[in-house]
């Protein structure tokens, strides 16, 4: 028995050693470039987990795409490795996770989602001169602090609200001014209250009358009272700014209570731009408009990405194309910098004219960290889908407004 097994074992060892030598040979001749690590910071657990998960889908899709296309050519075809960190839906955890990403040796960090997380995390990254690309966080203070490492690809609060109001006025004028009275319903946090305050001062300048501003907590258990107020006030237009669950409750309750204003015009709404809501409640969602981030529906790569996400059984939302674009933006900067050196990557980001993203922004141009071409679009739920109705050059549908006479 022993002699029988000794021989093959020796042969096997010899063959193994020869094989290993052969395999190592190309590595000796031409070293495989080290992977470039990009950090993704998203709130994957806690109150904002739904958004964090969407962001991750987009970032992972971008990494898969870049690697499938041959990695970073200027770095010898180096592959991208995504290092995912969980901001746990709070700014302190976001800042802690940046330390972890720093330890992992990432070349840049993408993400944050909520403004408070973006503020804390980009500040933490600034200490290490680590480039930070904000995916969604709209607070104007994010880019107003003069941090050289912080870049925002998407539009900020001022740009979004400015566009929201001017587009609303255009929409109303084009339809023969059917709407005059407005009720604002908003979540009582920083985002919703700030937006409502701005709307309440700006809308009267354009001939709208704000009948009432109703705040609600998050999470809200019941929207019946708000529906009751709406039924007695009978506004022409409802402007809600709430997170996903609350807006779903509100629109369901409104439908149940047979409240049908001439328009529902959301701004940066959590649900009106989420296809899960549209698919689960097609009737309640029908005709709802939103001024929000959205991909360019005329961009073939965006359309293919959306199709891929939906074929994987996931629901599409703006977090996906934004994170997809941000990761591609960083990869492009690393490639142009020609190395994973952070200072060079930061300079490359600042000088970036990147057009290979999937948002309707045109090539990037950063001034004080803010992408100048970034803008929101107006979407509307039509035929069980979310269509872009403004601006005209990217629109894939016409606005249906007022919803009924």
């Amino acid at each position, binding site marked *: 028995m022993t002699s029988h097994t000794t021989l093959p074992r020796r042969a096997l060892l010899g063959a193994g050693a020869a094989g290993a030598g052969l395999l190592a040979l190309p590595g000796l001749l031409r070293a495989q470039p080290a992977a470039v690590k990009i950090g993704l910071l998203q709130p994957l657990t806690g109150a904002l987990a739904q958004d964090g998960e969407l962001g991750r889908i987009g970032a992972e899709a971008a990494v898969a795409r870049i690697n499938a296309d041959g990695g970073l050519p200027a770095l010898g075809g180096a592959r991208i490795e995504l290092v995912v960190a969980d901001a746990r839906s709070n700014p302190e955890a976001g800042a802690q996770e940046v330390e972890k990403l720093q330890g992992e040796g990432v070349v840049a960090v993408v993400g944050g989602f909520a403004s408070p997380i973006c503020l804390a995390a980009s500040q933490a990254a600034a200490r290490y001169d680590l480039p930070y690309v904000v995916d969604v966080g709209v607070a104007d203070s994010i880019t107003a602090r003069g941090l050289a490492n912080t870049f925002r690809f998407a539009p900020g609060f001022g740009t979004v609200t400015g566009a929201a109001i001017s587009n609303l006025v255009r929409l109303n004028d084009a339809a023969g001014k059917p709407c005059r009275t407005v009720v604002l319903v908003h979540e009582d946090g920083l985002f919703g209250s700030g937006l409502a305050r701005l709307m309440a001062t700006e809308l009267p300048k354009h001939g709208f009358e704000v009948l009432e501003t109703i705040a609600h907590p998050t*999470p809200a258990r*019941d929207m019946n009272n708000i529906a009751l107020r709406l039924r007695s006030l009978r506004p022409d237009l409802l402007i809600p700014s709430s997170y996903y669950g609350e807006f779903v409750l509100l629109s369901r309750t409104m439908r149940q209570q047979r409240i049908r204003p001439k328009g529902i015009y959301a701004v940066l709404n959590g649900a009106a731009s989420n296809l899960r809501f549209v698919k689960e409640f097609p*009737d309640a969602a029908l005709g709802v408009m939103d001024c929000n981030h959205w991909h360019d529906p005329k961009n073939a790569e965006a359309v293919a990405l959306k199709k891929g996400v939906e074929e994987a059984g996931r629901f599409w939302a703006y977090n996906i194309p934004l994170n997809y674009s941000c990761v591609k933006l960083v990869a492009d900067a690393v490639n142009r910098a020609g190395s994973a050196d952070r200072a060079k990557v930061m300079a490359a980001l600042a000088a970036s004219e990147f057009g290979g993203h999937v948002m309707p922004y045109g090539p990037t141009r950063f001034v004080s960290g803010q992408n100048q071409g970034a803008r929101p679009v107006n979407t509307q739920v039509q035929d069980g889908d979310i269509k872009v109705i403004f601006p005209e050059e990217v629109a894939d549908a016409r606005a249906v407004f007022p919803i009924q006479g």
Partner: protein
Amino acid sequence: MLPPELIAEAVANGLLAGAAYALVALGLTLVYGVLHIVNFAHGALLTVAMFAAWGMHAFLGVEPYAAIVPLAVAFMALGYGLQRWVIGPASHGDDGNTLLVTLGLSILLENAMLALFRSDTRSLGTEAGFDVVEIGPMLLSRPRLIGFAVSLATAALLWAVLAMTDTGKAIRAVAKEKLGAQLSGIDPRHIYAVTFGLGCACLAVAACLLLPTFYVNPRVGNAFVLVAFTIVVLGGMGSIPGALVGGLIVGVVESLGGLLMGESLGQLGIFVIFILVLLLRPTGLFGARA
């Protein structure tokens, strides 16, 4: 001044919402009354129950109302098992430990839900969720009216179980005098587990009633559990009629407060009542004197 029909409708809505709160509080108050522990896993268990009700509909096609009885039985068993073989042994008979164990359990359950179902917010897209019953000028949600009736029936059933059955008597005996109950042949570990099981069964019923008009995500239980704690203190810790009446009061106060002062400030009313009760009647509305 608001028109009276608006106020009447707000009161009706408050009663309907309050019945659901009462059901969630019922389980909490029962566990407190017998085991003398505050169950921090209550919200997480409600989330599990809501996912179970959602799953019954999504995967098996069982309507939430048809799922009430099977889920209540399943959660009775789950609760029994949790208390008998997890919470009880892990606490080593110390109430402080029990708090930590239930807190740990809640973190575990919430994250298990997150891993299993991801963070999406899901709802039942059934047309039945939009049905209304017209009473005069009022449009009342049919699923919530059904929820109101079933909540009252569940409270009555629970009261009957405690008042009339041998198990109920044993539960009350353990709650009042544990040592005495033990001396007369009652196994407190079994009774504790039965009580915890009953509390979980209440949650399963509440989940089936909430789901047609609400949504479910891995954190949804938190929306109800804080208000349930308030109701338990308001009604008197361990009191079933207290939980029911407390729930209805909180529902109406929240609804009227929301209508008159706005949803955010309206929540104040609940806590004003809470503080007043603690000041003037620390045992709660129906609580026995300590």
